[in-house]
């Protein structure tokens, strides 16, 4: 086991959050959210990874083969699906904001609403 994937997950989480916090453009902000989300993919896959193990396909194989954990892969896949819905919805809202406010800068948006 190596700490590298965990370090990558933490890095993605932090850099994504930094992007969300400092973003000056809403599309950029949504993409930064996707970066934060990628950290959860990496973390989940790292949790279930076993070095030197086979893919978790047991058809025709002896039952005792070393395989990576299939559960986390299912979780990651579900995560992808869930977050695809969130990202699509957010981007739809952003498109509509551009139509109604004429800007995508959160700072200017805030002033317009005051």
């Amino acid at each position, binding site marked *: 086991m190596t700490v590298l994937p965990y370090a990558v997950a933490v890095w993605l989480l932090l850099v994504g959050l930094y992007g969300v916090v400092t973003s000056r453009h809403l599309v950029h902000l949504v993409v930064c959210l996707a970066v934060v989300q990628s950290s959860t993919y990496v973390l989940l896959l790292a949790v279930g990874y076993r070095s030197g193990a086979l893919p978790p396909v047991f058809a025709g194989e002896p039952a005792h083969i070393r395989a990576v954990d299939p559960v986390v892969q299912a979780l990651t896949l579900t995560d992808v699906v869930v977050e695809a819905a969130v990202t699509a919805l957010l981007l739809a809202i952003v498109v509509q904001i551009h139509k109604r406010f004429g800007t995508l800068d959160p700072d200017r948006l*805030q002033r317009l609403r005051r």
Partner: protein
Amino acid sequence: MSLLGPLAVATALLGAAAALSLSVLRPPRIVLDALATSCAAVVLGLTTSLLVASGRGPVISWFGGWLPRRGIALGVDFAVDPLGAGMAALAAALTLAALVFIWRALDHAHGLLHALLLVFLAAMVGLALTGDLFDLFVFFELMSVCAYALTAFRIEDQGPLQGALVFAVTNTVGAFLVLTGIALLYGRTGTLNLVQLGMTLHRHPHPEGLVVVAFASIAAGLLVKAGVAPFHFWVADAETVAPTPVCALFSGVLAPLGLYALARITWTVFLPALGPRASIITWPLLAMGTASVVIGSLMCWWQRNLKRQLAFSTVAHSGLILLGVALLRPVGLAGAAVYLLGYGLIKGSLFLSVGALMHRFGGRVDEDALCGQGRGLRGLGVLTALGGLGLAGLPPFAAFVGKSMIDRGANGPALVLVAAAAVLGSVVTGATVLRVAARVYLGLGRQPTGAVHRHGSRRPGEAEPEGRSGPVPLTMLVPVGGLLLAAAVAGVAAPVRSGAARAAAAVAQPVAMAQLVLDGRPMTAPAITVAAPDAADWVLGLGSAAAAVALAGAGLAAAAPTRARGSRRLRNGLRSLHSGHPGDYVTWIVVGTAALGGVLGLGLR
């Protein structure tokens, strides 16, 4: 019996699909309304029977026949106890009330709104009933996505767009935090079943940093949804602009569900994991709960927009419920559950009464602009005032009973803190409602100047349909009154109190509960009895209600908003924190999560 839970979720989902496919045919509106309303009524019936059934012991259903083998969970389950079933029934009741309400409101509503509300209901019911941590996350996200879409329902207006953006960004960050915590727990234990997680972690006698990090990120993510300070900033932005019947759901059940999930995970997973060190999570949670009560109450009192007032009272009351959970004692948990039930029903009723005002006056929900406008609407005025008194803790509403039980769960310095916060939160938020009721329905207090009257302080894009005359439609009055009646009945009925106490006692035995769910070994939860509220509680309840009336009177008598410099500086400071900027709000989430994790880490050393 074990089919009831899955059936409730499936009914709502199928109803949503039916509403959506019907809407393609452009049927008369009444068809969609009838379909959605009857669907919600069926879900309410199913969840109520589930509540009754679960009183005799947890109702467990394993999906696809994947039963646990030798005490190890293989599949995914619904493990329903009275707390979960009650939460699901509350969600169904409020959704039913909101669906009846929109019969005559929201003229542009077509199948989409009905479908969204039903999927929202399915997700809330699933979240309340599930016994699996990852399923909980999926239902949580399904619920959130529906909520974002519902907030932005009037997509042509500026306000809803901005509110939905802030709501979606902050809550998505919260969801990632929850998922990170789930991944860490799975990595440590290799299971996702809630009771199995608790059992497995319980076998490691020494809690480690990983458990604390997992708790901090899961708790922070759920507290974002619950609207607890410093994660609460989105609440006011979203609940001011979403369609009002939807706000009733957000305030009455969406935010409480965040607290429900936190309580469930804390008691089932983290208390067994932390063992004797469990008390380290009490004070951070108490601090956040108290901060929410203070900030929510003050901001609620200072607002003039009726919906924004109610939104900040959500923050205050979420803090109050968190106090009951944070005490980590069964009586406190039972009190929080009863309080949550009473609060959710009253708050739903209050939001719907604001919705009826908006229906009547075309979106002007500014206190000054509406001053004296509601003189003809006696019924609505009486119900609003009753709701305000209920929020302030007037017996016999369930909020009063819950508060007295929470107080019984505390002792020492915690008791002083909890009792003071409970009085502050309920008196101030109740007084705000009473002040508004007196101004709108009786025309008391400061009269608006002409300028305010003409323009209101309506922000662009907050308009609902134009005003109209005539009495308030019965389809609006009945949900408003019905929810209040339910809150009063829940306060009077002894089974609510004793049932919550029994359920909390069972939740407080996570290892025995795990053996029951996984091995079918019967458990005997020690009976905890909670006495009915005694004379002191009644005095406190009546006193809070009287204090709320007095405070409302003082607010009416003040000629203009207070001019004291200190208070103005505090008010401006607090207001500027609620900037509506997603970056600011996410910063608060990051800071809050880091602080929570840091404090817990220090406590563990």
